[in-house]
């Protein structure tokens, strides 16, 4: 566990978002402590991915506030209104429900691209390959190769990302996210398309990543095995509203949750 228990890393307060007249997320609140692993579950269209998009700045919340204790910024920096790259720079990284790698770039360049904000040379130095260019490129490439080695992808560094098998693409997406040096990692359905055996491996993998990179994780998932297996706390969304919050075993027996997933009749 992280040493900073009790220290709030991310705080979402009554975050509400509309798409036109449709309320996609309503009054979403979350207090996330450093080092936690929290799950967000809910039926399709419940607004889970929208929550990630609101945190990372892809959408700007219609109402509410999201604060983050990021690197280099003051405690409780407001995220709403910032661009995705600014938020990433503060220490929030994510993966995507459907893999969104840079397909025609090499595995190495996928990870090097994510080093963008960590590169210490200016545009003129880039244009003439002068000054700090060589040293910095060497550093970034070594970092990227180390990261790929940790994910057992180093032997594929020169392959185009689109040529990787599905499981490796998933791993590369996490490696790429980690290259931005996050404190908080958002995983959007990491187990999508995996069989039970692969899900067991993924659970170990997520625990390993969390320890190794000292991360706080929020995870969206449909696979209950995974959520119940590794999440410490769970938030359940349905039609944009938070219908339950609590420990895994509490959620499993929550009447509202069963109703949302199985329909009213089944509960009765």
């Amino acid at each position: 566990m992280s040493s900073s228990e009790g220290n709030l890393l991310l705080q979402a307060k009554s975050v509400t978002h509309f798409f036109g007249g449709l309320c996609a997320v309503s009054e979403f609140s979350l207090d996330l402590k450093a080092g936690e692993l929290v799950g967000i579950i809910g039926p399709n269209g419940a607004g889970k991915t929208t929550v990630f998009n609101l945190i990372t700045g892809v959408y700007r919340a219609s109402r509410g506030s999201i604060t983050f204790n990021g690197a280099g910024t003051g405690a409780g920096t407001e995220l709403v209104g910032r661009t995705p790259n600014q938020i990433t720079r503060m220490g929030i990284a994510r993966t995507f429900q459907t893999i969104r790698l840079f397909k025609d770039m090499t595995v190495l360049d996928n990870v090097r691209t994510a080093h963008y904000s960590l590169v210490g040379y200016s545009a003129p130095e880039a244009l003439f390959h002068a000054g700090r260019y060589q040293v910095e490129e060497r550093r970034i490439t070594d970092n990227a190769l180390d990261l790929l080695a940790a994910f057992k992808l180093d032997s594929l560094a020169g392959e185009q990302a689109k040529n990787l098998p599905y499981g490796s693409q998933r791993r590369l997406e996490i490696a790429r996210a980690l290259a931005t040096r996050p404190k908080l990692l958002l995983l959007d359905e990491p187990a999508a398309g995996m069989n039970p055996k692969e899900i067991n491996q993924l659970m170990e993998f997520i625990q390993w990543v969390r320890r190794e990179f000292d991360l706080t994780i929020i995870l969206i998932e449909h696979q209950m095995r995974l959520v119940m297996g590794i999440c410490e706390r769970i938030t359940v969304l349905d039609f944009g509203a938070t219908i339950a919050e609590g420990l895994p075993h509490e959620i499993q027996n929550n009447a509202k949750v069963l109703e949302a997933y199985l329909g009213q009749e089944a509960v009765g």
Partner: protein
Amino acid sequence: MANRRVLPIVLAVGLILSFAIPALGLLDRYIQLILMYVGINIILATSLNLVNGYMGEFSVGHAGFMAVGAYVASILTVRVFPPGTEAFLFPVALIAGGLVAALAGLIVALPSFKTRGDYLAIVTLAFLMIVKSVIENIEAVGGPRGFLGMSKLTTLPWTFVWMVITLWVIRNFIYSNYGRGVISIREDEIASDLMGVDTKRVKLLAFTISAFFTGVAGGLFAHVLQFINPRVFDIIKSTDILIMVYLGGIGSLSGSIIGATIYTVLLEVLRPLGVWRMVLMPLVLVFLMIYRPRGIMGLREVRWFVPGYDLLASRLWRQARAEASPAGKEASDVL
């Protein structure tokens, strides 16, 4: 690796030839002219490839940047520079033309941030029309009648030098942090933004650099032709550059060289066909798009253009792979 030692020799031979050909009259003047057009078109294709090929945007306004560069450079050499110094100050005129074109690029890029693809194409098309009508309405530069009086300052060596500078700078840009940003925008702009890439800044840089070299090419072009008018820089000119880029291959410097060379030379070779060449060329393009939609070199690159450190990176991962495989392990045990 031996290839890399050949490159300086190729450049030196190219430079010497560019001086020797006109001085010794090795080729007839018509072929020298074609060579200059090839060089200028390589600059144009490389610049446009940065925006359309590497970044995946779609600019059809590059003839506008060319016009800006051509007019600025021409006004400088004809009206501003003291007589007798214009040959000496020619590079200054070209750079000035490039800088004003870059400024125009900045002005076009800023409001088009929120647009992409088709929408950016419309914005750049509007820009092209504005440039054309502005020039047509400035009587001081000849309005629709055009501007003349330029000496033939564009020479084979100048064309060669500017072509090499353009290729070198754009190569450097692509093989840098910003270049990876540019390519990642083409691949997936939202993912790129979420990986920390300052997409606004990267787009702005790419567009400005592209406009700069297009402006320089415009200046060179004006001083070959020695006469420019607004109609020279219309949508057909933009289309020519687009064809060179898509023929040679998107996202490839060697592709831009090949595309510009083939297109320029083919148009000349087919000149006896008269109007029919304008039927043949589009047909070539249609078949190319069907059978090789990314162009001849699409997204591939000749090793000469890959900087030394990137080749080192590729060697590193090959080593890592050799070590990971049992064969590699045995080999190291033996040693």
